[in-house]
């Protein structure tokens, strides 16, 4: 049974500065598993893509600003380390894409068996890497 104070805080949560929410067991509690990592990666990749959208925006704007600015950005893109970053950025994009497809499959109510969850996670990793290679080198 919950204490009276807890109930009061829960029902009046709009009146206090911090919303008190019940916590479920989280990262420190569970033993890390591959499927769990892939699930976490979906969120992390989303955040990286969020900030990466500035990269695409910078490219679009440099095209508008003319050949000199565009050439400046192109020089930046030609550095090896930036190339590697762009490659990883593409991989992150495909990781999020295939993770999304996994969610679409789950939305239909299919693929919840332990075996299929494990295999879909593996396929996400494999297909995202293959797609990145295809876009970069074909």
């Amino acid at each position, binding site marked *: 049974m919950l204490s009276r104070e807890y109930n009061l805080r829960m029902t009046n949560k709009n009146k206090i*500065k*911090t*919303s008190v*929410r019940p916590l479920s067991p989280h990262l420190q509690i569970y033993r890390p598993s591959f499927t769990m990592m892939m699930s976490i990666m979906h*969120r992390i990749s*989303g*955040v990286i*893509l*969020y900030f990466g*959208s*500035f990269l*695409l*925006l910078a*490219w*679009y*704007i440099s*095209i*508008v600003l*003319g*050949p000199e600015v*565009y*050439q400046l950005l*192109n020089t930046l*893109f*030609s550095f090896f380390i930036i190339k590697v970053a*762009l490659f990883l950025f*593409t991989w992150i*994009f495909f990781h999020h*894409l295939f993770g*999304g*497809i996994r*969610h*679409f499959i789950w*939305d239909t109510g299919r693929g919840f068996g332990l075996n299929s969850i494990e295999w879909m996670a593996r396929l996400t990793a494999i297909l995202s890497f293959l797609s990145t290679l295809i*876009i*970069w080198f074909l």
Partner: protein
Amino acid sequence: MNNRHSEGTHHFILQRLTAIINLFLGVYVFNFFIKSVEDSHSSVIEGLGNNFSWLIITIFTLSMCYHMWIGFNHILDDYVDEVKARSLLGNLNSIMVVIVALATTLSMITISFF
């Protein structure tokens, strides 16, 4: 609750709708970006004119912006409990998304029409 859908259901549906758009257009845009990132200025502008690439980029960016606006708001909901910080970051999220959407649309229109 007066709406037919609650906010959560509304976001659930729109997150998937925008995901479908991103799925198809995103691959096209990423492919275009990676393939032409080292091309000359004039050939990139020519490429943007082919196959309505500028329009595809614009539609993709608008859909992507809505998708990432919902996504980032959910992350804030999950990890930021303090109401003031939550609403500040939520506003920053909105500003960021509007900047990306507007700037990309204006850039694409400028490139293709002027």
